[in-house]
């Protein structure tokens, strides 16, 4: 008998809860009218960022292309006369991209980054293939201070080997002194 009363009470509680919900303001966010601000690190449309001094960060190392699980990134590498590598062309097929963010993790120069801009639907599927000029932006993205060639340990116009930030002088391989 006590079980019966418990059961009736439990069902009654359920009904009163749903009834009270009738008078609560719905928590729905109506999307096209109200756009919630997404977290800075949420993953959507991919960009190619630049150094603080305005140069392209991408050194066309192919790591993003290699790690991409759906193979939507392709590029052709080239080298400037000063030895600085860059991508001659760089192409992302957003019709195939799954926005997993592995390219961003693989990138050694912080060049390729994902942005919170997810409203990227197109009627024409071919217009989802983005070329380098569509991808390249004029800012540093989420890593504003970083400049790969300041840390890379290779000679640049700013200095020789071992003269950049946090670099030690090259080891003298002709000597066995520590």
């Amino acid at each position, binding site marked *: 008998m006590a079980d019966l009363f418990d059961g009736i009470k439990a069902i009654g509680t359920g009904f009163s809860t749903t009834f009270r919900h009738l008078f609560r303001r*719905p928590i729905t966010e109506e999307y096209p009218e109200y756009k919630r601000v997404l977290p800075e690190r949420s993953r959507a449309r991919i960009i190619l960022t630049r150094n603080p001094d305005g140069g392209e960060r991408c050194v066309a190392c192919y790591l993003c292309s290699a790690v991409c699980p759906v193979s939507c990134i392709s590029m052709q590498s080239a080298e400037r006369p000063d030895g600085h590598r860059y991508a001659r062309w760089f192409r992302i097929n957003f019709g195939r991209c799954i926005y997993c963010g592995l390219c961003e993790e693989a990138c050694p120069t912080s060049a390729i980054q994902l942005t919170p801009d997810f409203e990227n639907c197109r009627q024409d599927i071919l217009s989802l293939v983005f070329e380098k000029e569509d991808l390249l932006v004029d800012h540093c993205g989420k890593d504003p201070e970083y400049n790969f060639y300041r840390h890379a340990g290779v000679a640049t116009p700013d200095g020789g080997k071992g003269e950049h930030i946090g670099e030690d002088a090259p080891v003298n391989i002709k000597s066995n002194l520590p």
Partner: protein
Amino acid sequence: MSNWIAGFIVLMVKIAVVLGALLLSAAYLVWAERKLLGRLQVRLGPNRAGKFGLLQPIADALKMLCKEDIVPSAADRVIFLLAPAVVALTALLMFAVVPFGPPIVLWGREVPQVVSDINVALLYVFALSTLGVYGVALGGWASNSKFALLGGIRGAAQMISYELALGLSLIPVVMMAGSFSLVDIVNAQAEMPYIVFQPVAFAIFVIAAMAESKRIPFDLPEAENELGAGFHTEYSGMRFGLFFIGEYVHMQVLGALTAVFFLGGWRGPLLPGPIWLFIKIILVALIMIWIRGTLPRLRYDQLMALGWKVLIPASLVNILLTGAFLLV
């Protein structure tokens, strides 16, 4: 002859009005259900098509009419095409015996406000309700898909076991009214609706009616999260739409039957008969939606246990008690 023609025209007009009202209110019952269910779950519900989403049923109907009508290559074609029609047809036909007002006098003729006042109306309702099971079971079987078959089997088993409780719960009503005709049953409630005398029968009837119309918490035949969509997994376009219409017309018919058997039918103060019947149908439908928004789905064995071990014995005891009271 002219008498016969006039009667025929009146009958046709009545059928047209009833069918039109039933189908239109089925469409808007879907809207009301989605809207109310949304609010019960602290959501908004449909609000894009027209003001408050009022054009949503029309948009849905257009969408379903424009969709491709797919028949699986392994399906039993004839039965597959027939099954949705059986479900919708039996649900619509059931309304033919529901009285929606007192007889009115038009051009010197007395016109009863019911499509057909047959003296075994109650048996007719049960016959059609049972035939509706064929639509579910055959639709599930003819799809030749395991989910649909499981849904069809569940539907047949569930509806046959709840049919018994549904029928037995109404025997006290028939005993008190002394007639199978729904018109007579409504007239017998002129002073007091039967819910006052038969609260147990009312509860059994409503529970069994919800199981009959395959609504949550008794929606095992179409359990979305176990069976896809159960017996109508393989249906698309307007054939699925027919199942859908059938379900919502069934809901209205059961609301109307609840009103007729327990709430006094079209009888009520001030307002005309059809309006009172409509209010009572909507009331029952809203309570069904509230139940859907609250209770989880029963397990299969719980469903069977409730039907066979609780509802049927309770209704048998209720018949005995009613008989004893009537004798005394």
